[in-house]
């Protein structure tokens, strides 16, 4: 009997918290299909009496959203590919290759994890401006090429690769790059997927740096375009919600499909040495 009561209590609490967690997202989705002005009623509606796609059509035809969607997808993909290559090379070296100062360099990198990105932003902006990369995608790609967290993640995973395997390949005469490319990378596939998700989502969701670097509105990423849209269309609740749905949806789909890898990576990053 007591067991039954605590079960009801537990599931009740879970159901309420889950509903509260989903409510903002659910309302966003519903409002995005409502005719203009009809989400601003009292009491607020949580059902659809008539559904319309006008806001989505407006976003894609009049407001160029497809363009920003493509910008974000392209930029996030490029950063992901480059970051995977650079971070996996360095992560593998820290895990499996011997070189002078390995531990010191690695420890310095870990300590630097607490440096807030904003501290580097002002000089980074000046540096990139000097190089002519401001208001180009290079300004986003170049600082995203390598990350300490990415190196750390790969290194933690690559530690588990048996040395005997690498030595056997060396005895067979394989070059170091060949070993990395055709032996280490395939073995690291799960963590590479994880890092790819992190990097893709991080670049997709990033706001402050693209806001600073990109001034030309044809180059805007989706979050910057959305914030800009809010300036002109703050009264058009339903239109803004449709824009929010389109911004959130791609990353949510990526997460749902690859959830397993995402959580695993989060734990590997969260477990202390």
């Amino acid at each position, binding site marked *: 009997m007591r067991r039954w009561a605590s079960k009801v209590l*537990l599931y009740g609490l*879970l159901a309420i918290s889950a509903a509260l967690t989903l409510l903002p997202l659910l309302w966003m989705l519903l409002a995005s299909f409502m005719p203009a002005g009809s989400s601003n009623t009292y009491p607020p509606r949580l059902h659809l009496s008539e559904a319309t796609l006008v806001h989505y059509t407006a976003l894609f035809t009049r407001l160029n959203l497809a363009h920003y969607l493509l910008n974000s997808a392209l930029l996030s993909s490029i950063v992901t590919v480059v970051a995977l290559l650079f971070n996996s090379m360095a992560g593998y070296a820290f895990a499996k290759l011997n070189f002078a100062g390995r531990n010191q*360099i690695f420890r310095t990198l870990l300590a630097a994890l607490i*440096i807030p990105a904003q*501290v580097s932003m002002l*000089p980074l902006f000046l540096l990139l401006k000097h190089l002519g990369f401001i208001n180009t995608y290079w300004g986003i790609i170049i600082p995203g090429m390598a990350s300490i967290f990415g190196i750390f993640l790969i290194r933690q995973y690559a530690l588990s690769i048996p040395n005997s395997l690498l030595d056997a390949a060396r005895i067979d005469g394989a070059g170091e790059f060949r070993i990395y490319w055709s032996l280490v990378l395939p073995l690291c596939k799960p963590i590479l997927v994880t890092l790819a998700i992190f990097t893709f989502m991080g670049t997709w969701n990033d706001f402050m740096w693209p806001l600073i670097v990109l001034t030309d509105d044809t180059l805007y990423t989706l979050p910057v375009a959305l914030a800009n849209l809010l300036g002109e269309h703050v009264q058009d609740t339903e239109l803004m919600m449709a824009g929010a749905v389109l911004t959130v949806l791609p990353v949510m789909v990526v997460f749902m499909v690859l959830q397993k890898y995402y959580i695993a990576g989060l734990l590997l990053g969260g477990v202390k040495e």
Partner: protein
Amino acid sequence: MMAGRKAAWHINPAYWFLAPALGAIFTFLFLPVAAALLLSFTDFDIYALGNPDFLRFVGIQNYLHLLQDPLFWKALLNTAYFALLGGPLSVAVSLGAALLVNAKLVRCKGFFRAIFFLPVVTTLIAVAVVWRYLYHPRYGLLNYGLSLLGIGPIDWLGDPHWAMPAIILMAIWKNFGFNMIIFIAGLQNIPEHLYEAARIDGANAWQQFRCITLPMLGPTFLFVAIMTMIGYLQLFAEPYVMTQGGPSNSTLSIVLLMYEEGFRWWNMGYAAAVAFVLFAIILAATLLQLKFRRADDA
């Protein structure tokens, strides 16, 4: 001679693997951080941006100016308010959610875990836009829910007393799932026999939580507390989209101030000083928490 040439060719291959990533990190992180320190001792402004000849070294002038700037103190207090109230609340909600999801009686853990985690993966800007409307004093869902409980309408984002709590609430919703995952992992690492022994000794659920769960979660707590603190001290996008720092600067954060000074008014020397104060605070907060932890262990 041949030997020398051969040695030159024998650079440790590890360095080839490290060079791209470490080169990028050095050039685009370490170098700028060092440059930021130098920048904070100059009067770099919009004129210097056009012509570096206008750049002057001003010593600690920016930092002195900072101490007399009421806007800086306001931003500092707001950020502290956000981090010191929002941080612990967020950790508490995460722990609560982790305990619920991890409870032995609960099935479909993966389902609930995924739901609670969903806000974490959303785009901050997009959900900040959504919450702006949820906080609408007349039509917003939140005030409607409160009115059902008999609580009068609150002008969430328009009232200087409520704007920061509103941002805290949204931040908790957005972030709690992240720490929840870490806590679940921590909970699963606690050996079951400890609870069994406690039950045999007649400990109730609260006593088990206080005497086993909490102490055993120690290292997890440290990690979560530091990461949350670092993240919350960098508050920026929420006030940028929801309140622009208002009303009457009640949601102006340190990073928002840095952004406005540096990238809107191009007072980059002054903004660099703001950024370095933030860095110093984060460093101090991290060291303090590590120290507390060590004192606990001893």
